[in-house]
């Protein structure tokens, strides 16, 4: 099971130490970084979810963005998770020409 972490825990992240001064056994994952292009808007989202759900939850119509992770494209049924850096790149171009 995936544990949900509060913002406080995330903020303290890696620097968190146990009372005895030892480093905890689990690395606290950083939330997912989602960038919307070409708007250049940056979002931070926590927790594993399907690409289709992520896109829908942002009010974006299916098929109007490329979902990019590194050098790969993701389909709607793929999962994204904490520590991922995702770009949602609009495919619509406008104007009269």
């Amino acid at each position, binding site marked *: 099971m995936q544990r949900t972490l509060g913002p406080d825990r995330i903020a303290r992240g890696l620097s968190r130490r146990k009372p005895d001064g030892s480093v905890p056994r689990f690395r606290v994952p950083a939330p997912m970084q989602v960038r919307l*292009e*070409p708007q250049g808007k940056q979002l931070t989202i926590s927790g594993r979810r399907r690409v289709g759900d992520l896109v829908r939850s942002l009010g974006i*119509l*299916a*098929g*109007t963005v*490329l979902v*990019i992770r590194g050098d*790969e*494209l*993701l*389909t*709607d*049924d*793929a999962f994204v998770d904490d520590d991922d850096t995702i770009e949602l*790149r*609009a*495919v*619509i*171009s*406008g*104007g*009269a*020409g």
Partner: protein
Amino acid sequence: MKCKRCSATATVQLRSHNTAFCKPCFVFFFQRGVERAIARERMFSRDERILVAVSGGKDSLALWDTLVALGYETEGLYLGLGIGAYSSASEQKTRTFAERRGLRLQVVALDEAEAGLGIPSVAAATRRPACSACGTFKRHHFDRAALAGGFAVLATGHNLDDEAARLLGNVLHWQLPYLAKQRPVLEPTHPRFVRKVRPLYRTSELESATYAFLRGIDYVVEECPNSAGATQLIYKDVMNRLENEMPGSKLAFVTDFLSHGLPLFAKAPEIADLGECARCGMPAAGDVCGYCRLVAEVGRRRAQAVAHS
């Protein structure tokens, strides 16, 4: 999700075609689709030289890449519109694209430096919408370059979404003369014009963006600043909502129009016979072509502004 051709893990899902592909199979599917569109509409043959109008965006670069991959003889034409950072970024990306692939590229810059004929200056001087001035300039310079270079065909990157949005607009306002001309191949109406074709007319924006990404094409993702709020975007949004509920709607709208609707509109009144422009020699409906009239108007307005100040 699995690729429908080879069962590898899919990278691309195309709901409109009820299919999914891995990278190599999608590239194959895309190029074959363009080749079939060219053949179906008899756009051009491998003996003809094609001038490809490129803007640095995903569609025109994906088109150029595909035509080269399919073995056609092409040359690119980039028109510098003088629209600030957007134009510099798109010119640089277009140049890089052509250089990396060893392709011939012609760059025509609107004369902003000497004559102040960049799109923003022209729009401001004439109080016209930027896109209207831009359309006039593009048509003129594309026609002129195609004629000067002795090309048989001018190809542009208009995609299925562009065609569907334009069709929706034309139907909403029952623009009969425009409906009669909305087709992927326009035969020249004057000996100084060349055939104009839109090989991506059946290819969606999702497909051309996917293709550009998978082929490693570095295109301008930013939009022209004048495109915000353009009516075209509203039509595209309507079509995308339809497509979301009923996958395949866009393609059916455009292709059914071409097979069933277009023949009914083809009888709409013809535009007057074309002569030649007294100033530039390009085809014109009156004594002077639309482009030369616009340039003259810029000069007149500027002279008036100086006289008033």
